[in-house]
């Protein structure tokens, strides 16, 4: 069939190894930063969706529908080619020059656009999972909170949301993993994350199979670590009062 000579050192040493490590670091940063920002945005969207004002609920619902029914690729290209164009020229110039913040390099324009697009995209999915969690909380809980004299927001804060989060936690972990698996799309705007670097190695020394094998392993490991970390975080948050929820 095919005679293929595996040469792992071509991928795991020298320049290729540097590229892999730096790519992994970029992927990690994309995931973490987008994850945190998307979570905050998702909470805002959830708050709007649960608000007493119809206008806010409508805006939130429209946002979610819009960002879930268009591909991340189109959104990414829209922000990079279209969104950047809308920024004032001076901002663009500032972004395009290299900066340092206390010894650490300020991220490049491409990385910023990547994080921006990933954040806006993922927030829609995260907030839907959170909303499903709220729907899973029984009506009796709202009644009990109401009867004790908690306001709408107080009920959410102390009684409903803690329960909603427990119901939503597993699906939310799935969404964070999805975010990590969506991050390679940023390679199309020249963000030098792991898959981008893997392709660099391939065009450098043509050892495609080894390169992709290593990338596969690294993504799997990253996913495993992320999943374990989030499970632990969940255990830490819900240390008491297990709702007997799977």
């Amino acid at each position: 069939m095919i005679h293929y000579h595996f040469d792992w050192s071509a991928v795991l040493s020298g320049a290729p190894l540097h590229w892999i490590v730096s790519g992994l670091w970029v992927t990690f940063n994309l995931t973490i930063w987008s994850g945190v920002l998307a979570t905050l945005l998702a909470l805002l969207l959830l708050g709007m969706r649960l608000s007493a004002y119809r206008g806010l609920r409508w805006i939130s619902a429209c946002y979610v529908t819009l960002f879930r029914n268009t591909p991340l690729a189109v959104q990414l290209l829209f922000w990079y080619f279209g969104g950047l164009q809308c920024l004032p020229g001076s901002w663009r110039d500032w972004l395009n020059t290299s900066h340092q913040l206390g010894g650490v390099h300020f991220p490049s324009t491409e990385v910023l656009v990547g994080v921006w697009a990933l954040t806006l995209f993922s927030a829609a999915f995260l907030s839907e999972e959170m909303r499903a969690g709220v729907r899973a909380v029984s009506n009796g809980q709202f009644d009990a909170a109401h009867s004790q004299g908690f306001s709408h927001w107080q009920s959410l804060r102390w009684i409903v949301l803690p329960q909603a989060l427990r119901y939503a936690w597993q699906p939310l972990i799935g969404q964070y993993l999805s975010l990590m698996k969506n991050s390679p799309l940023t390679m199309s705007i020249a963000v030098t994350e792991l898959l981008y670097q893997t392709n660099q190695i391939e065009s450098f020394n043509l050892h495609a199979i080894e390169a992709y094998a290593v990338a596969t392993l690294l993504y799997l490991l990253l996913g495993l670590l992320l999943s374990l970390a989030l499970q632990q975080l969940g255990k830490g948050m819900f240390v008491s009062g297990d709702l007997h929820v799977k």
Partner: protein
Amino acid sequence: MIEFKNVDKHFADLHVLQNINLKVAKGEVVVVCGPSGSGKSTLIRTINGLEPINGGEILVDGQAISKRARPAERQKIGFVFQQFNLYPHLSALQNITLAPRRLGGLSEDKANAEGLDLLAQVGLVEKSRHYPAQLSGGQQQRVAIARALAMKPRILLFDEPTSALDPEMIGEVLSVMKSLAHGGITMMVVTHEMGFAREVSDRVLFIDQGRILETATPQAFFKHPVHPRARQFLQQLQSPLHLAEESA
């Protein structure tokens, strides 16, 4: 203490409460009974705003309750649900101290001390750290009663508190309710437990199809019910099988 003036409520086409007029005096224990679908649950849920009303007004302690009942108004009224509705993510003690701490501004220590007192009142001090899932139905309902008392309400409302309990646990809940009644708090109880009504209540209200059809002292109501539907209801309660055979 509680007053209904020409209260009306609709659920889409259904006229659930029709021109309700009643007064509950301070310290009175009133039992509300009636067949299912009569509106008795809805009646009691309008007092603290769980159900809004469409016409008339409700006064608590002389003040008209707003349509949805403001949070401050609700804090003065304690409510006990048929399904207990304890907060599953909090322990028994935490269920009781949540409102005093977050709404009443009590410190954790003070709230805990008062909470343990209430648990003692309902006989469950040793379960303070347990979670609702670890408690039996009767225990959960007793914690729910303690929780309803946490903000020192002037009125206690009960919506079929023992209907969701296994028979052997009904007694422990009723005995807590009896001691509360003897303590002098104003109570309004929707229930089928006629023994409780006979022993403890000052007055029985019979409601059917959204109207209060009869109001009497328990002795009068159980011995000589006036309204034909009230009579039918009591007969059915006492011997359901007998009546089903008769009408078959």
